[in-house]
């Protein structure tokens, strides 16, 4: 009843080709943006802004990056965290070494650096596929973290290999409150997410999907393998690089290469598997699940213990958390192997028919 595109006629090519062709989707996206930009800043407290929402947005961006590569172009990658590390260290070095460098330009350049590194490590994808490619990107993961640790120049010869992100200042305004950092992160993530949504419905995205579905067929109908695969690596790494820069500058403030380890790469991979491979919305849903759920479990544990009045052994609660989390992941994968985004898709189909299902 509410969600039905019947009666929405497209009278121009522009209307037919817009990012969200259904009016209700446009309204929903607009409402979410209004909620995120206006309602959240008015209601959320410092804890929500700086400890929950900012990391959620940053990981969503990284998950979008990986989703473009794995979900749309079909190239499995285990080097996501390393590309984030490239972004974080590149942004730091640009701001440190280039006087008067604007922060946003540094973020873009950081993304560009990550894109270059991504292209380099994407080269093997022209020859190898699937699990073998995953192993090749694993090399990126270890090599980049090793290089950032090994060569002191990257961390400006800090004795412990840690970098301190500089203060963010744009047009004379200092972004140091949690709210301003949240708004900056949100703006960047919103723009990049819309850009990704736009990209995947255009020529670039369609060529990626053609390669994903069957690369030989894609080559036969005239998609150049080299350009398609490497552009997927470049764009994906760009997103990851910007996410890494935000991770260092808007969230932690201080990062070490070891923080961008294989563990983080796997977490981002789980985000897209759970959220939905090949879906921009799924990247957000997956990031929400992986980032927020452990925190939620951990924060109910204490009061729960208090409420039932039984003092549980110290390690038990922490281990239970991991078990519940693991069990839920398996449950989700069994119930809905296509991820949370697919649940949303099914919901939309149902809404179209409601209230008169067949």
């Amino acid at each position, binding site marked *: 009843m509410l969600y039905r595109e019947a009666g929405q006629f497209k009278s121009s090519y522009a209307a037919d080709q817009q990012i969200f062709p259904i009016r209700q989707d446009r309204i929903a996206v607009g409402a979410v943006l209004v909620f995120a930009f206006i309602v959240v800043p008015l209601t959320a407290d410092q804890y929500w802004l700086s400890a929950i929402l900012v990391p959620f947005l940053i990981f969503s961006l990284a998950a979008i990056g990986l989703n473009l590569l794995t979900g749309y172009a079909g190239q499995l990658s285990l080097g996501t965290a390393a590309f984030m590390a490239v972004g974080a260290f590149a942004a730091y070095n640009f701001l440190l070494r280039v006087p008067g460098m604007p922060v946003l330009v540094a973020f873009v350049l950081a993304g560009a650096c990550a894109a270059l590194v991504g292209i380099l490590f994407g080269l093997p994808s022209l020859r190898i596929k699937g699990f073998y490619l995953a192993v090749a990107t694993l090399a990126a993961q270890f090599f980049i973290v090793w290089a950032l640790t090994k060569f002191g120049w990257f961390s400006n010869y800090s004795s412990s290999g840690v970098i301190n992100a500089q203060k963010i200042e744009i047009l004379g305004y200092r972004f140091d409150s949690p709210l301003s950092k949240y708004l900056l992160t949100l703006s960047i993530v919103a723009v990049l997410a819309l850009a990704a949504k736009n990209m995947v419905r255009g020529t670039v995205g369609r060529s990626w999907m053609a390669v994903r579905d069957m690369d030989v067929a894609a080559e036969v109908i005239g998609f150049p393998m080299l350009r398609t695969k490497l552009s997927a690596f470049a764009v994906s790494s760009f997103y990851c690089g910007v996410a890494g820069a935000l991770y260092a500058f808007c969230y*932690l403030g201080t990062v070490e290469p070891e923080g961008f380890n294989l563990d983080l790469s796997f977490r981002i991979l789980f985000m897209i598997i759970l959220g939905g491979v090949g879906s921009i919305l799924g990247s957000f849903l997956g990031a929400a699940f992986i980032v927020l759920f452990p925190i939620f479990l951990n924060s109910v544990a204490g009061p729960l213990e208090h409420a039932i009045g039984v003092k549980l052994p110290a390690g038990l609660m922490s281990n239970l958390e991991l078990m519940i989390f693991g069990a839920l992941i398996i449950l989700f994968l069994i119930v809905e192997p296509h991820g949370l985004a697919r649940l949303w898709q099914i919901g939309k189909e149902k809404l179209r028919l409601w209230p008169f299902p067949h």
Partner: protein
Amino acid sequence: MMRALKSALAGVAMLGFAASAQAQNEQFIPMAGYWVGPYAAGGSGIYGGFIDYLDMVNARDGGVGGVKLTYEKCETEYNNARGVECYERLKKKGPTGASVFHPLSTGITYSLIDKATADKIPIISMGYGRTDASDGRYFPYIFPLVTNYWSQNTAKIKFIGQREGGMDKLKGKKIVNIYHDSAYGKETIPVLDAQAKKYGFAVTHIAVPHPGNEQGSQWLQIRQIRPDWVILRGWGVMNPTALKAAAKVGFPRDKMIGVWWSGAEEDTIPAGDAAKGYIAAGFNVAGENYPVVQDIKKHVYAKGKGEMEDKSRIGSIYYNRGVVHGIITVEAIRKAQEKYGKKPLTPEQVRWGIENLNIDEARLKALGATGFMQALKVSCLDHEGGGAVKFQQWDGTKWKVITDWIQPDRELVRPMIEQSAAAYGKEKNIAPRDCSKES
């Protein structure tokens, strides 16, 4: 989903708030530690001792100056992002906010330096964290108390010198520093290089990638170098692996010296016989025959309470280190109460208490901790306070103390700290405090 989550979380927060509203005469201490993951042995032991000590003070003395100590746990998994989340979650809890934060991870400490300084919440990073924070002029809220890595490292070289029969005998010796490849592991490289130059020994730094359960190639390299001594700067599973690998290549264990994060029962027992003879530095000792540990048994465990499931871990290195955490936290609150009155104190007031902490031998005796830890005097200039370590040797079943407190090489370390802190101040645009004006 997020909104549902938010309302659920708000409900949880209100539940916690309702509990604290009943009794406002409380001092809140956050417990952001780790009970799972590769470093759980350290986290559970230290936080076990820490929490037990607070429970004991509550049960025996009714809190500090009549103010009850409360705490809430938060699992960080030794992960920086989770640690920051715990910090943000717990910093406003209790009637006056988090008194003092113990991150128990060098990485989390680094991530919190700016945030805690802005929030005016003191951070105690006891035996870990950022070494140059020992210069309190640039780091007013950060306290790497008791002893930092650089001091400890100079004490180690002194110990090696003692064993070799004098510091002049170090000339021409070969020392290998095998370290956990992280901010924590790399922290001592500059001071070792400086000492190598000063005493004329050769030092080779060999990195072990996290988590460190694969060290074959590193120990082959060590066998080729044939060093006189090996300094083990490991953490968690890396330590027993190193001991076993050393046994395999035939390197004598009594020429291996560990840092205090490599010198607990959890590091040696899994290595079995390979650990026998291994030496480690420590700023606290093992054993339960100290009045303070006995008090915990009497007031906490005898009543069927207590954090440790495995009672045999009471009196272990990590557990006792947790008790040291407890003693220092409680003494800092007590000191701050002398100035600000016996009521729940704000984190800023507790910070004053830490900075003016003075635990002398008489106070240690009153606490029942003589020989358990060293005397400590903190000041605005010196946020370290002690600096000495004892060396202990593993005899196959327990740690045996083999030296008295060995003092660090302050003439070497302090200028390095001041130089490094000043560089940090310059990078961050922080003007140093004038310590003569602090009261």
